[in-house]
């Protein structure tokens, strides 16, 4: 029984993941429909804009929007933390903006221009400047949810390991253990080597589960999922930066020698113009850059495609209501297919990021003879 509970939990999660796109997106689309209606009444010539709709969903936000029905907006307000030179530190809930309609304490959410969608400070001369913005945005909040989930899962599993020492694994342990073993035996040991892999295991495990859980949460369309965390360039940048820093800290003398003074390269490529070192340094920086862009692009693309299929309903619905209904089964079918694909992509991207990080660590710690 206990052994099955882990698997059944996963099964339930997968079912939810597969069923919920239709449900969640419908809510999201209700909202857009409302928007469209409003927009129609305000400006007759403006229809449904799939671009805006999609980007609204994949961008970060100051509140966690759940649903809109007629004039009623249901969203979770999140704390805005801004620091400006003139007004100092200000902390307040994003509900004070009334969904971007109001300004509060001289701050407002910009609707156009360079800082569109961001909190800006209204200056006396009428210009907007961007304060230092440490708000707990939708993505930050989603990260916290992921973190709580990780703490709960892994610390409880660790406790089971401690209490259940020398016995067969059970429950959640059964789900987590093969993944941990996979990361250890298929990623860390082959990439880094038997001798040094242990040092990097905590980072690789944290990285893998963080990316994977966030990818999966991103596939759940409603709260607590739906935030596009790993499809956000800032998040992937931070992750890539961690990999870069860990690589740099653990790089041995061979690694640095290879970069600055490669012994296999003739001297005239190093002096007077350090051509090869420059190329090597660029290569060193490109690795995390590629990690950053790959994860961001894959996850964002998945979200855009899934939302794109749903936009089709409203694009056609704008032309003729029945046409929209007619297209919807096809859209749902495509979206279900995309969600299955995204489930795979979520795992593959977490795997690739972890594998490449491990390979970079392996390169940085390799012993030359």
């Amino acid at each position, binding site marked *: 029984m206990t052994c099955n509970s882990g698997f059944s939990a996963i099964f339930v999660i997968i079912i939810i993941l597969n069923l919920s796109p239709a449900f969640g997106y419908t809510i999201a689309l209700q909202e857009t429909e409302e928007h469209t209606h409003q927009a129609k009444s305000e400006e007759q010539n403006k229809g449904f804009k799939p671009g805006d709709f999609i*980007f609204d969903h*994949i*961008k*970060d936000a100051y509140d966690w929007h759940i649903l809109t029905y007629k004039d009623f907006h249901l969203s979770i307000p999140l704390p805005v*933390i801004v620091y400006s030179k003139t007004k100092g530190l200000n902390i307040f809930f994003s509900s004070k903006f009334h969904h971007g309609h109001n300004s509060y304490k001289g701050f407002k959410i910009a609707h156009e221009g360079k800082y*569109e*969608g961001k909190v800006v400070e209204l200056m006396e001369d009428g210009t907007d400047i961007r304060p*230092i*913005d*440490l*708000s*707990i*945005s939708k*993505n*930050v909040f989603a*990260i*916290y949810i992921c*973190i709580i989930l*990780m*703490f709960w899962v*892994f*610390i409880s*599993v*660790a*406790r089971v*390991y*401690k209490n259940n*020492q*020398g016995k067969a694994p059970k429950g959640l342990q059964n789900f*987590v*253990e093969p993944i*941990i*073993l996979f990361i*250890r035996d298929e990623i860390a040991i082959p990439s880094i080597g038997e001798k040094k892999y*242990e040092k990097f*295991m*905590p*980072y690789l*495990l*944290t990285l893998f589960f*963080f990316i994977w859980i966030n990818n999966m949460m991103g596939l759940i369309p409603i709260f607590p999922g739906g935030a596009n965390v790993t499809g*956000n*360039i*800032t*998040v992937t*940048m*931070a*992750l890539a*930066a*961690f990999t870069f820093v860990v690589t740099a800290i653990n790089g041995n003398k061979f690694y640095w020698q290879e970069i600055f003074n490669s012994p296999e390269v003739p001297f005239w490529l190093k002096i007077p113009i350090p051509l090869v070192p420059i190329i090597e340094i660029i290569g060193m920086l490109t690795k995390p850059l590629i990690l950053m862009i790959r994860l*961001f692009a894959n996850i*964002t693309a998945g979200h855009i495609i899934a939302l794109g299929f749903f936009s089709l309903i409203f694009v056609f619905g704008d032309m003729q209501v029945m046409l929209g209904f007619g297209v919807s089964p096809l859209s749902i079918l495509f979206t279900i297919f995309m969600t299955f694909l995204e489930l795979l992509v979520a795992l593959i991207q977490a795997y690739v990021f972890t594998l490449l990080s491990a390979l970079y660590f392996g390169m940085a710690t390799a012993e030359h003879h």
Partner: protein
Amino acid sequence: MELVTPELGLLFWMIVSFGIVLWILKKFAWKPILNALKEREHSIEDALLSAEKAQEEMIKLEADNEAIIRKVKVERDGLLKEARQVKEKMIQESKEQASEEADKIIEAARLSIENEKIAAIADIKDQVATFSVEIAEKILKQKLAGKEDQKELIDKLLNEIRFN
């Protein structure tokens, strides 16, 4: 453009929270889990090794047993062979002894027969001598009934005996 512009606030929170997660999970989750896994692997490996060892020992024991059995068999065969040899030897010996004895008996018998024969012959000789003397006596008694006959014989005998 906003999609690919890093946001400072998010970057800050991301780095802080990921760093904390890394540290806490390392301390409270990954270390115990990895250690437990390692320990379990070690214990399994040990168990397998000892099982292998036991098996080896068993094979060795079996081999020993077989060797012992073989040795015993060889010994038994040896014993049997020896016994057979002893038996044959005994039979041979007894045979020889018997024949020797028989020979002896036969010899003794022969000897006694010879002796008897000699004795018998001697006896016969005696008797023959006695008989011949008696016969001669009788003949002589008969022949020498007259005086002339006696004288003639004495003369004859005297003639025969030469005085030299």
